[in-house]
C-alpha cells in the first residue's frame, strides 16, 4: 500500500456504508479434557484423503505402546465422511452409542 492519498480538490466526497454483514452469535462449549488416554476408547474418523490412514497407524502404534488400555475404533467403522453428509449427521449419536470417550478426525480437502 502506498502513502495515503490526500483529498482531491473539487471532487465529490462519498459517505459509504459497510459491505460486510453481521454474523449470528453462536457459542458452544468444548467438552472437558480427558484425564489421559490410558483406558479410554478413541474413535478414528477420516475423510479418506491426505494420508489419514497412515497417521492413524502411527497414532495406534505410539499410544497403544505408551498408554495402557487405550482402545481405538477404526475409521472403516464410520465410513468415508467426505461428501457424505448423512454419515456426519449420524456421527454424534453413533459415538455416543459406542461409548466413545474422544475422537480424532483426520480431514483435509
Amino acid at each position, binding site marked *: 500500500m502506498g502513502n495515503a492519498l490526500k483529498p482531491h480538490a473539487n471532487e465529490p466526497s462519498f459517505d*459509504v456504508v459497510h*459491505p460486510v454483514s453481521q454474523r449470528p452469535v453462536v457459542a458452544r462449549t468444548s467438552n472437558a479434557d480427558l484425564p489421559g488416554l490410558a483406558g479410554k476408547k478413541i474413535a478414528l474418523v477420516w475423510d479418506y484423503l491426505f494420508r489419514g490412514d497412515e497417521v492413524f497407524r502411527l497414532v495406534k502404534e505410539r499410544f497403544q505402546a505408551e498408554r495402557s488400555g487405550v482402545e481405538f475404533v477404526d475409521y472403516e467403522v464410520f465410513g468415508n465422511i467426505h461428501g457424505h453428509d448423512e454419515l456426519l449427521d449420524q456421527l454424534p449419536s453413533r459415538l455416543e452409542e459406542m461409548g466413545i470417550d474422544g475422537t480424532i478426525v483426520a480431514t483435509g480437502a
Partner: protein
Amino acid sequence: MARALAEVFGVADPRLAIYPGAVQTDTQDIFERKVCASLLDQIERGLTSHAVSATRETEGEPPDDPREIVFTGDYDQVQDHFVEQGWSDGLPVAPPTIGRVQEFLSNTEIAPATVLGVLEPEGRELTVWSIAVNGVMAGCRPEYMPLLVAIGECLVDEGFRLEDLVSTHGFEPLVVVSGPVVRQFDFNDAAGAMRVGRRANSSIGRFVRLLLRNIAGLRIPPAVVDPGAIGASFMVAMAENDAVTRDLGWAPFRVDNGFSDEDSTVSLLVISNHSPIIFTSGETAEDHLRTFARILGNAIGPWAYTATVHQGFNPLILISPAVARVLQGFGYGKKEIRDWLARNMWIEAGVTEGYARQVGWTTFSFDTVVTDPEQRKTYVASDDPTRLVPMIMNPDWISIVIGGNPSRNQSRGYIGNLTAGPPVTKVIAPSRG
C-alpha cells in the same frame, strides 16, 4: 481455515493438530518423522490438556445499523479504504452510498433486513441490504436487483452446496441467465459471450465473487479464510441465446430446469475449469459429437473418479448456434446429445485411479470403492489398468446452453465437481424500478 470454521460454529478453542508442511508431497520417511515428532504430541494435547483461547474477535465487525456511515472520502480514498479493510476484490469499486443502495432496494419488494440465509465459511447473514451494497460496488445497475436477489437465493440453497466451494480446489460459481431478462438487461449471448465488456455479464459475475468475499468471507491473503490453492478469476455471467434455442425447437435452459418458458431465471453452478474451444465439423452428428466427447473428456480428465465415488458430475456445454443447427438437422436434440456423450466418454481406469491416489486418497481403487454389483460389472470388469470406464454415468448430468458467435463452429465445456455442481435455478422477480 479450520480455526475460521470453528469460530463460525461457535467454537472459540478448536482442538487442532496441524501437520507441518504439505502432507501429500513428503516422502514416506519425512512424513513419518514429522508425524512422530510433531503431530502425535499435538493430538494427545488436544485430547487431554487443551488450552482455551480467546473468544471471537470483534474488531472490524460491521455496525449494528447497516445504514451507519463507516467512511467518508473522495473516490481514491474510498478505494484505498476498501482495499485496506479487505472489502474490495482489488479493482475499483463503486462507492456504496446510502443513495445508491436505496436505488437498488427500490427495485425489489423484499425488505432490506430480510435474511436469505447464512453463507459459510464466515457465517455472515446474506441480507437484501448486503446484496444491494455489493451490487453497487460491483458496478451493477439498480434494475438488476431482482436478479441479484435470485442469485442470493441460489447461494443459500442447500442444493448449491456452497460448502463444497470452500475447498483448496478453488472452484468458481458460474451464473447462467435464461429468458426475457437476457434482452431486458442487455446481456451478451453472442460473439465473446464469456468475455468482459458488456455491463450485465461482467458486473453480475463480479458481484457473485464480491458476495463470496464479503459475506462468505472467502478472502485471499493477508486474510486466511479462502482455502483455494490457486483459484481462478470470476466468470462473467453466461446468457442463453433464446432466439436460436426457440428457432431450433429446443427447450431453453430454464425449461430444462423445471421452469416455464415465460419465466426469466438465473442458475448457479460450481465450475472447476473449462475446456479448450471445441471446434467441430463433419458429415454426421457423430463427427461433431466425437470431438465434443474427446475435448470435454480431456477437460474432466482423471478427476472423473469423483463422479464414480459421489454418483454425480455436472458439466455444462455452451454450444455454438451454428453447431446446434447442424446437430438439429441430423435429428439430434438436447436429449440425444446428452445420451450420445454419456455413452461415449471413457477414461482408462488406471489413469483416474492413480490420480485419485495423487490427490490424496492413497488407497483408492475401483475395486475397493465400487460396491454396487451392476456398477462393478463396468468398473471392475478386469484388473487391467488400461480398461476403459465411463466418465458420465447419467446423461441428465449434462447441461446444454446455446450461445457464442453464431457464425463459428466453436463450443466450450464447463466442468463441474462431484456433489456440487447441479444447476440451482431461481425465478427472477419483475423489477419494480
